[in-house]
């Protein structure tokens, strides 16, 4: 079976529920969501108004789920959603939305626009209108266990490297460990130093941990595509691996949508609660700090700032924790404007960073973040998402800004007092 318009429209019909109906009914067309959207703000093109990106979903709701819409539909007064409509909306649903959740937060009537974009993507992906890069990544993830393809050899090499560096063995597939650690493909490929940092921190704190060969990949391209069948397949691997090892918790790494996928969407996708708890690495580190199990020595004296990943802070609720940790290890920590829950997106999330077609738009959207960084003029930007990390590096290079970027776990590792 191949992707068809009818399959896409059917997926949209499936997605319409009471919250969607109440959101569309209660929208007052105030336009505040436009002001909250980085793509609208940096282009001032009204087509990027978040609620407008949902117009196809709204049309289906109106013509098939409302009384007046049904009557109008009977007389052929409601335009049908066509293949051409879906093609036209690709750019709006996939290129110009990182699902950062800012619009949801400002909506005066409380409409969860981000959740509706996620639902729109269900229909778009089922109809074959998802960006080819994400479609390719989904195939690789399904077949080889990671969106970057077969990563087992790289993972094993990085583990060996970390063991050599720290002198602490890392035992894979160890049943009964306290935690099972997930990694994002980005970390394995680009930022493997995090492994050594975690190894040392956990050793000091007396935590046992392991990595599963069956499910080490934290990312979930199904979430970015917006396809729950694919997302369910991928999250099930992690859930099964963790339950097989009987760990008490799974650590979600520094990756935004991975946290969304496992922490919030996962139980709904598989239709039951997990037999383990999910904790974000930064959440766990702050917890260890509070318990006195995480101690640091010395501080970074350069000027550092922090970039909040949308999925972990705004949509994940982890706001105070990274700041507690930052103050532990940085003596000159300066916040940018709008830092915290109203932070602006790095412009690479939600699959936008992988989408070649969106490259120019993405560079333009970064201007807001750029201005905020220029105002603070930091020596280093710290973050807690590997993909934000990757995007920031790419954007800083494009905009000729010479600022170092570092993951927070790695920074904590640098100043860990493990004597």
């Amino acid at each position, binding site marked *: 079976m191949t*992707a068809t318009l009818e399959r896409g429209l059917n997926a949209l019909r*499936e997605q319409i529920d009471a919250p969607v*109906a109440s959101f569309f009914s209660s929208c007052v067309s105030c336009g505040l969501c436009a002001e909250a959207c980085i793509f609208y703000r940096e282009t001032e093109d009204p087509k990027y108004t978040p609620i407008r990106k949902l117009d196809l979903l709204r049309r289906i709701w109106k013509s*098939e789920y409302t009384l007046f819409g049904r009557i109008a539909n009977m007389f052929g007064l409601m335009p049908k959603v066509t293949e051409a409509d879906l093609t036209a909306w690709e750019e709006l649903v996939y290129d110009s939305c990182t699902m950062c959740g800012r619009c949801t937060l400002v909506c005066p009537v409380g409409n969860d626009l981000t959740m509706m974009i996620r639902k729109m993507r269900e229909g778009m992906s089922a109809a074959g209108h998802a960006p080819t890069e994400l*479609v390719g990544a989904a195939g690789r993830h399904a077949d080889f266990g990671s969106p970057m393809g077969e990563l087992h050899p790289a993972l094993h090499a990085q583990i060996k490297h970390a063991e050599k560096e720290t002198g602490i063995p890392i035992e894979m597939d160890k049943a009964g460990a306290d935690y099972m650690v997930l990694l994002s493909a980005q970390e394995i490929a680009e930022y493997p130093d995090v492994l050594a940092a975690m190894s040392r921190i956990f050793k000091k704190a007396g935590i046992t941990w392991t990595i599963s060969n069956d499910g080490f990949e934290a990312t979930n391209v199904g979430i970015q595509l917006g*396809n729950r069948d694919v997302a369910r397949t991928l999250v099930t691997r992690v859930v099964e691996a963790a339950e097989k090892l009987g760990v008490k918790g799974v650590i979600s790494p520094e990756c935004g949508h991975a946290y969304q996928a496992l922490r919030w969407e996962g139980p709904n996708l598989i239709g039951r609660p997990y037999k383990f708890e999910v904790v974000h690495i930064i959440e766990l580190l702050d917890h260890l700090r509070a318990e006195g199990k995480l101690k640091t020595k010395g501080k970074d004296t350069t000027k550092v700032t922090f970039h909040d990943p949308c999925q972990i802070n705004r949509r994940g609720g982890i706001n105070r924790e990274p700041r507690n940790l930052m103050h532990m290890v940085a003596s000159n920590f300066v916040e940018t404007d709008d830092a915290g829950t109203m932070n602006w997106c790095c412009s690479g999330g939600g699959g936008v960073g992988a989408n070649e077609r969106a490259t120019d738009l993405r560079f333009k959207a970064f201007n807001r973040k750029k201005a905020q960084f220029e105002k603070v003029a930091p020596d280093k930007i710290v973050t807690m998402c590997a993909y934000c990390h990757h995007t920031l590096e790419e954007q800083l290079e494009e905009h000729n800004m010479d600022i170092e970027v570092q993951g927070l776990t790695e920074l904590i590792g640098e100043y860990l007092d493990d004597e």
Partner: protein
Amino acid sequence: MAPKPMLPELMQAHGISRRGFLKYCASLTSLMALPPLMAPRVAHALETAARPSVIWLSFQECTGCTESLTRSHSPTIEDLIFNAVSLDYHHTLQAASGHAAEAAREQAMKDHWGKYLLVVDGSIPVGNPGFSCIAGISNLDMLKETAAGAAAIVSVGTCAAFGGIPHADPNPTGAVAVSEIITDKPIINVPGCPPIPVVMSGVLAHFLTFGIPALDELGRPKAFYGETIHDRCYRRPFYDKGLFAEGFDDEGAREGWCLYKLGCKGPTTKSVCATVKWNNGTSFPIEAGHPCLGCTEPDFWDNGGFYKPLSVPAGDYRKYGLAAIGAGAVAGVAGAALARAGKARAAAAHENVDAHDLEK
């Protein structure tokens, strides 16, 4: 026709001193909301007024307005002011009858064409004009014919001004107000059931001295209909304190508390009842312990009952409200059922999407 006596002579004939006349002019001036400096002008105008011809037509009415003006406390200065005009036709008051009476009207119209003042009390039936006739002429024809040569029209009483009681639901005669038939003449509405005598004479005095007074959106002189009874009511302090009579024989009623909960229409009724009062300034309905009926407002008879508080909606709202709620609930449940069925169909039609199955 012998020249009629001027006002000073009439005053003397009635034993009213010049001082009494000037006092009346001053009070009339203030009542008309004119500056005090205007009092001498009022007096001068009344003394030298050319005694315009007045034709008074009574249609579907109870004669209460005429009673109010002429009989309530006669003889008075209002009565005298009434004498300052030449009342050439008024079928209750005139001695002539039948063809002679109609001849008097026709003569007055002919003699003063374009200058006479037409006063109307009572509504006009248009359902079938034959419902009310005078000397074989229907009210509708007589009004049209007489209004044609009038300088202005004063609609006295709520029936002439807004249709009044004949107009009340179900309005069997198709009664309408003067203003719904005559549209090309200035019309002054002096509503009330009946209007306060001094209001009627005050409007006439204003017309004699300064012409047509300033009117509100319902054609009522602002001087007499500018404020609500509620705003000037001596029981207003009780309203502001939230002290209400709940029945006609309870403590609140005995204490003289606000009658709002007993259906008083004072808050929505514009009239000078609370200040000028009735029967030579003796009292007014609220002072007598009864809520205001709102008689100076359009459709006062149909506003849902005299004893129903203003905050309770008028009309058969319960039946329609329940019907609307019922219909809404049925439509809502049916709509929800249809939507659920649509969603269930979509869920049944779901075909599992594989990661390799995302392209066309």
